[in-house]
């Protein structure tokens, strides 16, 4: 078995993994990126639409353009990568981390490292996750799989399409399939408001006259060998209106019903996960419950902008570098998701330096107020023009704002 040794190993070569590796390299540590696919870039490579990089590069790039700017930086600095390599196991061995992985060219490998950055991303929820009744014909895809088929593999998965869920990937695929000559008959959303960005409703649905059914549920899928149609039932006051159900003929169903961080590796390693995010529990340095193992990007929690992913990943890379050099946070307080906040990331605040938080709203509201409370007392209040669950909120806190904190104080973030 081939044996390798690095200061740090980054698992996953997408936006998060590349940004974390660059940061570790900048701080003088040897780093290896382990990537399952044949290329770096991760999911960005199939996201050929524009809208990436407004914060990071101050321009609107396509996914591949965004990814390749990072990839070129990786190549120019001679950061090592192991492509087509699948990590099987992470273990503590002799005071170091051991990463066991396999690749067609190298066979089995054991890589030793002082720190690990988890950057495996997320995957799509499937029909099984949302339990749609009906037959099991061909023609049912997750939106991201259809995106890969069309944009990379060069196949069109069907001609008459219905999209379930109004997440951004589904909306983007509505436009993509329309531009590819397919007919998108409808987008069906269970909630009374769209899950995707308003701008995507306009430029991906309205531009093509695609109807969006809010508060509607797909209650059946028909067809024996191939999808022939779906049954849609309106929801009124929380109840299914079966007498108002209608059928839409189609040969293809795309699902855009949410993403789940891909944490099988973390779970097997005994890393504690938390239910609100399906990602690892992390401290103020984005370190998981396995000392020296950090997490960032969509494996930690699902982000809506890659710009936020790389910001977080740089922090994880910098923190992993600091950990290797012996830094340990001395004073941390618990950070709690208060009213109308689904989660706050990370779940600890470091009282020795500034802290960036990301959080998700549970409500849709105009003119909302974000409050930071220390043991119930408001230490910061910020007005927000508009909040909705699909748009992640960001907040920076400095230690001075929490100077009144005691040993067991708790910080709570609330949305009013």
């Amino acid at each position, binding site marked *: 078995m081939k044996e390798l040794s690095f200061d740090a190993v980054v698992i996953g070569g997408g936006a998060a993994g590349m940004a974390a590796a660059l940061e570790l390299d900048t701080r003088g540590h040897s780093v290896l990126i382990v990537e399952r696919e044949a290329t770096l870039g991760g999911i960005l*490579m199939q996201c*050929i639409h524009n809208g990436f990089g407004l914060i990071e590069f101050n321009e609107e790039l*396509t996914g591949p353009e965004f990814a390749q700017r990072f990839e070129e930086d990786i190549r120019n600095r001679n950061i090592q990568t192991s492509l087509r390599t699948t990590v099987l196991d992470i273990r503590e061995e002799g005071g170091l981390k051991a990463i066991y992985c396999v690749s067609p060219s190298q066979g089995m490998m054991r890589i030793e490292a002082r720190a690990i950055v988890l950057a495996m991303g997320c995957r799509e929820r499937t029909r099984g996750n949302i339990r749609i009744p009906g037959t099991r014909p061909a023609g049912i895809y997750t939106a991201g799989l259809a995106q890969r088929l069309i944009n*990379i593999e060069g196949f069109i998965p069907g001609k008459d399409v219905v999209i379930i869920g109004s997440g951004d990937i589904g909306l983007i695929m509505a436009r993509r399939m329309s*531009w590819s000559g397919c007919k998108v008959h409808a987008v069906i959303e269970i909630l009374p408001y769209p899950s995707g960005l*308003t*701008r995507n409703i306009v430029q991906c649905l*309205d531009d093509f006259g695609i109807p969006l059914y809010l508060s509607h549920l797909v209650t059946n899928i028909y067809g024996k060998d191939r999808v022939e149609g779906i049954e849609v039932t309106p929801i009124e006051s929380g109840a299914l209106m079966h007498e108002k159900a209608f059928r839409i003929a189609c040969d293809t169903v795309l699902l855009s019903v949410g993403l789940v961080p891909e944490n099988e590796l973390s779970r097997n390693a005994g890393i504690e996960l938390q239910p609100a995010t399906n990602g690892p529990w992390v401290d103020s340095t984005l370190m998981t419950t396995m000392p020296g193992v950090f997490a960032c990007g969509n494996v930690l929690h699902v982000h809506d902008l890659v710009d936020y992913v790389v910001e977080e990943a740089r922090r994880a890379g910098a923190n992993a570098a600091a950990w290797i050099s012996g830094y340990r946070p001395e004073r941390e307080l618990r950070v709690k998701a208060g009213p109308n906040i689904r989660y706050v990331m990370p779940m600890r605040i470091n009282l020795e330096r500034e802290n960036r938080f990301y959080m998700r709203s549970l409500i849709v509201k105009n003119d909302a107020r974000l409050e930071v409370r220390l043991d119930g007392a408001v230490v910061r209040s910020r007005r927000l023009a*508009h909040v909705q669950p699909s748009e992640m909120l960001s907040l920076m806190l400095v230690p001075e704002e929490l100077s009144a904190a005691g040993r067991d104080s708790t910080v709570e973030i609330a949305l009013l």
Partner: protein
Amino acid sequence: MRELICITCPLGCRLVVDTDEHGEMKVTGNRCVRGEQYAREEMFNPKRVVTFTCAALLPDGSVPGPRSDLPRRVPVRSTVAFPKEKIPELLDALRGITVRLPVVRGTVVLRQALGTEVDVIVARSIASK
């Protein structure tokens, strides 16, 4: 009067476009100056950035096989927003274009598309093996 939703940023302002007593266009509902610019352009000359793919061919002219690590499609984009009503015609032109690998990001596949000032360029560098 026409109602629009601004797509310039994620806020999604609801714009109302109207004419005043002098026949001048008037935009309300925007929370910043970009909303007014968007409304004017959307009323008179709506544009969208076009992102699409073209077929990839290996150096010998063959199509990358199913076991190849190379993509069979090359992502392309319009350099800037393109007049909306001409987009179907632009897509038809792009359907007829093949791209030989290797290719470098920024390579022009369609110069001054359909008589506009907009080029269509390759959005991903791809090696040939």
